[in-house]
């Protein structure tokens, strides 16, 4: 028995004192750490992670209906009063706790952080010396795109360049718009320099040099207006846009034949057009949400969140483009053999027309909506916008040229409108601004145009709603206050602190 005891005690002490350090080692099977970033595969994976910020269905990104709400301050989009978040945004009286911020703000910063991971690591990365700079170029493009969106929506924002959590940044202050644009410009320059002429892997979701230049034209155009009003930037915008227009045809990018082709929105087609420059593609896993119930009236099973402004539609020139832009009536299937009934927007619950571009190809009557996840792409930038950017930017620097007329009139004739000629410089500019509103209605452009051109208050007239537009306004700026969820964690973000 004493032998047994000795054996037990011996084994106890061996277990106790010998195997300890190994016993307490954490096995990290299945975990991915940052050492993978030294390989091209790791860098590629991090880039994909950056793109994910643009669209993670329902979670974050620009493809939820909340993004349309954020730009509903424009006179093209209307949000009904049944939703407090939408009401604030539509009436330009936005508080810092607005519940529609999250998806867009979080998604864009996920793009930034993912892009930072690529940008801060690509130089140390081993792999194809041809591909790695293009990966980095896409990351620069994404970061420029994300900051450009953020700075236009929120104004002064925190500027993050690090790729891992930095405690000091938790208490940083917001950067001025000038600082943000400085980084945006540097990033888009890098993107233009590093991207190739073709989209990598021929994938429509990736930018090439042409797309980066088109974005650069938009950036210049915006910098020329409020709040920076940079000198010489209309000229730069015009030059850049023209370069894109000149190079586009050779790359197979050209204006679509008809307005009806632009937003077919039938799920059985791939819905990419010849003029798409930057799109967020969709699949059954990475679907686009807003085409579903968000932008549909409840009469056809939608949620009554996004509509068109009545005044905007009334001023909208008639023609095929108008037909392709608005959803004004639906057919109610007759019950028990009764004839079908056409019910127009005036008799809908919210008494506003829908924006057809943002809807799935309407399925028909009540209860016929399949679902709110669609496999339609989100069109973020198309050549028509670049054409109008060129026309406007050039007209702001000199008398409109033949070429400016050419591009404006191409857009107008496609919309079934008469060609312009002989306009004064100001008339021409006004015409382009209106044309942009109509051509790009519901595409998140009008709100930013109103901001850069300081037309927000003037646009209230077009909204045709019974409220005092200045009633809810609490600041002299129309950019949004930073989300309360951020300023509570970091009070230094608020200028008053």
């Amino acid at each position: 028995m004493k032998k047994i005891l000795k054996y037990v005690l011996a084994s106890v002490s061996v277990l106790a004192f010998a195997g300890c350090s190994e016993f307490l080692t954490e096995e990290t099977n299945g975990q991915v750490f940052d050492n993978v970033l030294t390989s091209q595969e790791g860098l590629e994976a991090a880039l994909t992670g950056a793109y994910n910020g643009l669209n993670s269905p329902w979670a974050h990104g620009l493809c939820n209906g909340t993004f349309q709400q954020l730009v509903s301050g424009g006179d093209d989009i209307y949000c009904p009063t049944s939703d407090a978040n939408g009401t604030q945004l539509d009436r330009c009286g936005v508080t810092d706790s607005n519940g529609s911020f999250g998806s867009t703000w979080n998604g864009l910063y996920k793009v930034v952080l993912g892009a930072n991971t690529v940008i801060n690591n690509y130089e140390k990365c081993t792999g194809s010396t041809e591909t790695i700079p293009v990966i980095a170029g896409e990351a620069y493009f994404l970061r420029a795109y994300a900051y450009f969106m953020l700075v236009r929506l929120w104004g002064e924002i925190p500027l993050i360049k690090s790729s891992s959590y930095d405690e000091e940044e938790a208490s940083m202050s917001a950067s001025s718009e000038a600082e943000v644009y400085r980084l945006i410009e540097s990033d888009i320059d890098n993107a233009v320099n590093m991207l190739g002429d073709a989209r990598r892997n021929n994938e429509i979701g990736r930018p090439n040099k042409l797309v980066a230049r088109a974005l650069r034209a938009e950036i210049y155009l915006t910098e020329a207006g409020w709040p920076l009003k940079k000198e010489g930037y209309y000229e730069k915008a015009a030059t850049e846009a023209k370069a894109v227009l000149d190079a586009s045809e050779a790359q197979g990018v050209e204006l679509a034949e008809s307005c009806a082709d632009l937003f077919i929105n039938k799920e059985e087609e791939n819905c990419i057009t010849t003029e798409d420059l930057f799109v967020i593609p969709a699949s059954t896993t990475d679907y686009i949400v807003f085409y579903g119930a968000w932008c549909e009236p409840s009469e056809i099973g939608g949620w009554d969140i996004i509509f068109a402004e009545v005044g905007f539609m009334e001023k909208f020139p008639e023609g095929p483009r108008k037909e392709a832009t608005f959803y004004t009536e639906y057919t109610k299937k007759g019950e028990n053999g009764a004839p079908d009934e056409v019910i127009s927007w005036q008799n809908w619950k919210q008494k506003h027309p829908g924006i057809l571009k943002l809807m799935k190809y309407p399925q028909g009557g009540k209860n016929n909506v399949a679902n709110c996840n669609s496999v339609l792409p989100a069109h973020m930038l198309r050549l028509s916008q670049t054409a109008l950017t060129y026309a406007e930017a050039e007209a702001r620097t000199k008398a409109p040229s033949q070429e400016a007329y050419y591009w404006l009139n191409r857009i107008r004739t496609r919309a079934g409108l008469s060609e312009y000629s002989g306009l004064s410089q100001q008339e021409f500019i006004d015409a382009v601004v209106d044309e942009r509103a109509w051509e790009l209605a519901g595409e998140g452009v009008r709100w930013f145009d109103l901001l850069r051109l300081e037309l927000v208050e003037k646009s209230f007239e077009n909204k045709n709603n019974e409220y005092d537009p200045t009633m809810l306004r609490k600041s002299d700026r129309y950019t949004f206050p930073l989300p309360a969820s951020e300023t509570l964690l970091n009070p230094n973000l608020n200028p008053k602190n």
Partner: protein
Amino acid sequence: MNLFTKRMAGFCMSLLLLCGLAVDSHAFAQGATNSPAPVTGVVKDAQGMPVVGVAVIENGTTNGVTTDVDGRFSISVSGDAVLEIRALGYKVVNLPVKSGGNYDVMLEVDAKVLDDVVVIGYGTVRKSDLTGSLASVGSDAFQDQKVTRVDQALQGRASGVQISNTVGAPGGDVRIRVRGANSVLGDNSPLFVVDGFVGVDFNSINPNDIKSIEVLKDASSTAIYGSRGANGVILITTKSGSTNGKVNVSYEGNVTVSSIIKNYDLLSAGEYAEMYNAHQTAFGLDPVFSLDEVQSYYENGGFDYVDAVLRTAISHQHQLSIDGGSEKTQWRVSGNYLDQQGIIKNSDYERFNLRARLNTKINDRLSFRFNVNASASTGKNNAGTSGANTILNQALAWAPTTDPYNEDGTYVVNDPTGSLKSNPLALLYDAEQISEKTFLTALAGANYVILPGLSVDFQAAVDKLFDKEKSYTGPEAAGSSPSSAGVTDSKGTTVQTTTQLSYNRDFGKHTINAVAAFETQTYHYASTTATATGLTFPDLKYDNLKQASSYETESGYSMWTLVSYLARLNYSYDGRYLASVSVRHDGSSKFSEGNKFSTFPAAALAWNVANESFMRDVPVLSALKLRASWGLTGSQAIEPYATKSAFGSASYTFAMGGTTTSGIALSDPANSNLKWETTEQWNFGIDLGLFKNRLLLEADYYTKTTRDLLLNKGVTAYQGGGSIVSNIGSIRNSGFDFTLTGRIVETKDFSLESTVNFSILKNRVLDLGEDDTVYVATNLTGINDGAYDFIYRVGEPLGTIYGLKYLGPWQKEDAALAAEYGCVPGDARYEDRDNSKTYDSSDYQIIGYGMPKYTLGWNTNFRWKNLSVNMFFQGVFGADKLNYNRCIFMSASRDVRGATFSEVKDRYIPGVNEDAYLPAWSPTSTWYPVSSLWLENGSYLRLKNLSIAYDFSVRKIGDFTVSLNATNLFTITNYKGIDPEASNVGGGTSDVQQGLDYGAYPNSKSYTLGLSIRF
């Protein structure tokens, strides 16, 4: 427990006496041949039960006998004599007798010898020698309630233990807390130890197998569990076989009928249509229902969705156990089957349990033991779901004016007027959540006595949990999303070894009880998940995921190890002065080098004042003990790998119709400096017994201070969002636990015993590092996206509710001021703290406290002959609840476009009802979800159990007990919801969020008929 132990002890005592007296009694028997008729009698206890093995000795002689199994004795004495009747745990009776007489003797429990043995960590101790604070619950305390899970046995029966059935579904989530919540991040549930196996899932335990439950509360008791002791420890000892050579077979069965605890007060279809039109009008829109339609709904009614999803549920439970054994070997096997239905249709829980236990003594020195427990359960739709798209929420949301069926009998997918979400009937019949869990635990141990008092013990145990979670959402339930299904398979394995040296010895008046042990635990977990979206053949559900338009797979792995050294020394002098010191040294793989190990010491002192000679003359006082203890315990409130920054998965689609590309994205940042969270606890207690212990009071005061508090500090979204864990901050729980037991009447035929326990808990955040406040958003309703509803703040408790303060509707006389807010009279008015004329984040403030301050349990047992009655009240006081139901089902906005609650009739209506609490419906009136508009007092007192049991014997068959009991018969509360106990948050783990009700699965009212037979 008391009774059981006492009888066992009495039996052992009698065996000893028998051995000692065997020779003598033989001699006496001879000598008594010519004596007159013997004295006979029966010895019974206060409950009238015969007491076996009682020593009956003629005073002043060595003449003695013991009682038989029926408590009878027969002793020959010469003429008049005095018999001394003694049994362990009872007072000695001196009975004057005459030869030939027949006497009934009733034994009284000896209050001064509280010799119950209680289980403490890594050993046992006589209750009178206890230095720490523990609550002991024996199986007899809950056997009449027909409990199906351990928490029901404990709820209200142990002071300092707070239990809430936050999810009323069968097998649903429950919140168990011992002396409050110490950790923000970690699970504050206590540690369950079953027969020495540490860290058992209490769901795997069949309560009918439990002999006793000991809740260790103070640090001197829990520090022996070191890094896992901070939340209290619940020790469960399972029943073992008998030692008397008999085989016992018992059957217990019961059937339960349950229904919803209270009915919702909903608008009728006619009222609904009328209210809907009123809402339209208030928003300047046309009415939706014509006058004829409204009238028709009033006359013909609509569809009652709530009634359609609820049912009267029937459940049953059966248990068979067989045990037997001798002094050398004891064995017990039991099987249990439980089939529970939930009151929401299609929700149920089924469990099979098998437990076997074998103890054997090879010789005086060596013994072995072997325990096996197998438990297989299937829970269907019984999880604590939250969010809008749940059956109950949609049953409340769908317009009663909407017919749920299409003409062809399929479910209507979209409600044209009310809800934006799925048809509740589709959610009920076209969706499933199935959780199949199989627990297997095997434990083997050996004990060897080296020297008298010194023994070495080795125990090894393995615990496996196979978990399969299956889900299915069919096309009709998915509504506006595609159908989907998924399966997650996981396996967790825990292996524990414990090697222990124990030394227990009395040296005169000194008693020493020492233990030293070495313990290891390893845990490995692996899982695979497959999900599919857009099912080609929805009927195949989760059983053929390939038939879908897209699918995803994931797999995961994690592990941790823990190594521990522990020692404890208990010392007692003359049963008067007691001391205990213990230490545990734990090392965990979860921390980085240098932070892996920590030491958890504890000490306790107790003074049994009643055992002092000077107290013998105080007849009223039968027990008095003063206790004090101090100790440190820990919590490993972090998940494995928290010290290492890893990437998560993120995907993107680069081409139309293309496949998804997987990528990586930053997850929560890591902190490599993490260390143990440590809780320091002081405890001061008093045990007082009065009137021969007919009245017993146990009172404890404690403070628990947790330092190096692990906090999930929110990371701003611009830095990636999520949170980072750090050891910052401190939390204190302090409070009083009282238990008052009164054995009010104690006679042969009639007894009445009542126990009240009451706990006061004060929880305070003391320090949050650099921050003053941490904000938490539950996003429960889906309509307050991103808005915070909870905070924790220095000086405030966890579960503090943070929102706008509602001031009632704007009044007419304040119209001018209201206009500055863009409001009109009748609109909701909130406190504008910074006078900014707008309601924004700077106006948010503390509006309530979700954590209960007081808990009460009151258990009364009444017995008259064979009839016994148990009445058990349970109460929670001083807790606020945010009743989101009222917000969602009266606001008529967003996801639920029509009001369904009757209360909405009482809203402010200009010119009609201007003296209202609820604001008006108007385009400028915002009914903020996170506001005191919906805050209510969640206090309640509930008759948790009322049972009547009748015992009777049937000759040659066995003993029978028939019982009838009612659970949750009535509740006294001001809470307007269905069930103040139910909550969507603060279930199993979280204490930061507590007391939200948004269609939480309510508890049910139930009646149980039970039968038990002992052969």
